[in-house]
């Protein structure tokens, strides 16, 4: 009879020290959302907008990059590969959770960094101790589920942060939604939300849930959570990696500050 418990003990601790140790997130070598570099567009090339499969990029009248909606971005890297001037660059920025959908929109206009003030009263006291999450797949590709399931593996070990997945929406504080919200899943999703006790929060996990992403726009697919449920944290990514999901959960709990404002990274 094999001794699994002993075997587990002998293997020691597999859990990362992240986020306490900022380098131990386990995502080394992965690419995130494209970064907009200091070099501005030099030619009227339109290549990035044409390369983007989700219409996340808008150009101004001169054909230069004007806005980039990270809420539509699936970090497919096609714009980065197409850009001749170095305006769009590859980056390892994957933690893009924000509270306001507008904060995912980068635009050429000068950035205004909003005050941190509203943070303190934003989250209810009842969530401080622990958070119980009900996940609903509203029409995903299973990529987000794969990364959510990874949260409970020994490397990320989500429990250590006081965050738990729960079976019943009646015991849940947070509804974590993945997928484009298909016509058939809209009703079960809303039923799950209605069954949750107040106070309750919603996290849109993955670009599909934020905007429909590359899969939205058909007769049955839906276009994400906008207009379906009130969203508290938007997390684009295709899929967001497990560390990005943890960052977004900690942002919701106000245990981490929001890094992205107006589509730009601001470390505080």
């Amino acid at each position, binding site marked *: 009879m094999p001794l699994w418990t002993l075997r587990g003990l002998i293997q020691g601790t597999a859990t990362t020290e992240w986020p306490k140790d900022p380098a131990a997130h386990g995502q080394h070598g992965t690419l995130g959302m494209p970064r907009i570099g200091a070099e501005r567009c030099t030619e009227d090339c339109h290549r990035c907008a044409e390369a983007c499969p989700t219409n996340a990029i808008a150009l101004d009248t001169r054909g230069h990059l004007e806005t980039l909606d990270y809420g539509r971005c699936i970090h497919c890297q096609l714009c980065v590969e197409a850009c001749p001037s170095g305006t769009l660059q590859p980056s390892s920025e994957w933690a893009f959770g924000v509270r306001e959908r507008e904060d995912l929109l980068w635009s050429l206009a000068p950035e205004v960094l909003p005050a941190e003030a509203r943070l303190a009263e934003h989250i209810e006291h009842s969530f401080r101790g622990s958070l119980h999450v009900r*996940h609903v797949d*509203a029409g995903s590709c299973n*990529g987000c589920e794969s990364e959510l399931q990874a949260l409970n593996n*020994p490397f990320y070990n989500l429990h250590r942060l006081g965050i738990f997945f729960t079976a019943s929406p009646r015991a849940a504080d947070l509804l974590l939604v993945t997928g484009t919200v298909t016509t058939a899943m809209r009703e*079960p999703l809303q039923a799950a939300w209605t069954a949750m006790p107040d106070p309750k929060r919603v996290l849109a996990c993955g670009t599909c849930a934020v905007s429909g992403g590359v899969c939205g726009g058909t007769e*049955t697919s839906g276009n994400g959570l906008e207009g379906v449920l009130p969203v508290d944290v938007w997390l684009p990514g295709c899929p967001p990696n497990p560390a990005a999901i943890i960052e977004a959960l900690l942002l919701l709990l106000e245990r981490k500050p929001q890094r992205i404002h107006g589509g730009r990274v601001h470390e505080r």
Partner: protein
Amino acid sequence: MSAPLQKLVLDADALQARVEQLLAGGGRMQMAYAWQAEPDALEVRYLAAPATGQPLELWCVRPVDGVLPSMALHAPLLGWYEREMQDLYGLTFRGHPEPFPLVIERSEGVPRAPLTLPDVVDPQAQWLGFGPVRADVVESAQFLFLYIGEAIVHYVPRLFLKHRGMERRFEGLSPLHGCVLAERVSGVGSVAHALAYCQAVEQAAGCAVPQYARQWRVLLAELERIYNHLHYFGQLADATTLKVGQAEGRLLEERVKQLAGALTGQRFMRNVLCPGGLRREMAVPADWVDRLSVLRKGVESYLAQLERTTSYLDRLITTGVLPREVAFDQGATGPIERASGLDRDLRRDHPYAAYDELPVPVPLAESGDAHARAQVRAAELRASFDLLELLLPQLASGPCRVPCEAMPGSFGLGWAESPRGSLYYAVHVNADGTLARVKIKSPSFSNWRAFPFTVHQTNMMDYAINEASFGLTIAGCDR
């Protein structure tokens, strides 16, 4: 692509004789789909795989006034394809044994997932509905059990709640954008989907992919198989309440995903493949091969430990038996069919990418139970490591891609043996070079069709283990 594709035009009346002839010769139907061949005319294409060693066949049939004879009584696996065409293309299949909606049903114009339940006479029997929002982090589907006490009398999975209309989403896209979309049909099969899709476009364009890209495609596809099969063992250990076994399986899966991320920049290895080859030059990071061999040792030890655990084996042996005939008739594919003794694997039978240069062992088992399915997957896991170890030292150099312009009005069929079984992409190209029609035959669509046959007349205690032993995805099935 070494095995060519044979295209035949058939009359609707000749279909039955042709199907019977194929079955008599040891062949099997693979899929069927409809497309708008002309502005006012639909065409149905049947894909048939004759006995091993012969090329795949594509039968093109024109429906007469929107009607074709149903082949579901002769080749039961076609039943779902016919129902799908009925729902999405308005065709009628004369004599279909289950003519109910499958993928989509409209009530007051709103599309919804259909549900048809059999009539029940026994007053003791009750329906138990489970889902679509189920415990744990899982994909959405509704499972309906007709049960008496612990006994499951009949089982109906209600799928297609997640039907996103992905095949429609391809229409009008450029072939490159189509690849990005193909990677997002089934997340845990990103590489297999991109590979089958790219090969379909390459066939339509008539371009030959350089060896460098073909080898890297195999490398990524086998790495995808490894993390999927490890996930599978984690799930199976969870279903058999082996908590440490579950944790270890999940940890090994995480390590592979991290290796995949370090290798390709994306944990699901997306954004690498493109029609014509690869999007960029690849490089194996310095310590990568060493990390892989450390991982392999961990996997070998883990599998050996599982195979010694009697409580785990007891729960798998004789659970969820899929007899060979049922697996064949209902179209089971991949490790599921191989665990029921059917000797098929696209990597060996119709080699693609660089598989013709590599030995591809095809592990089989005969008993068709959950244990057989686990044994086949364990053997495949080891074989995938062997393939990687063989391939890594002999990676070719050279260009990573060739220009690949699909010709106007052209057609291509691509395939891949995904971790879950046979995956086909049929791609029709418009006159302007954009995609006109893309059909996706995913392995989970096939295996979900076969799965209920292992659930009827069993018991509730075995259900979770049986489901885990199939390793199904819902996104791939629903599309």
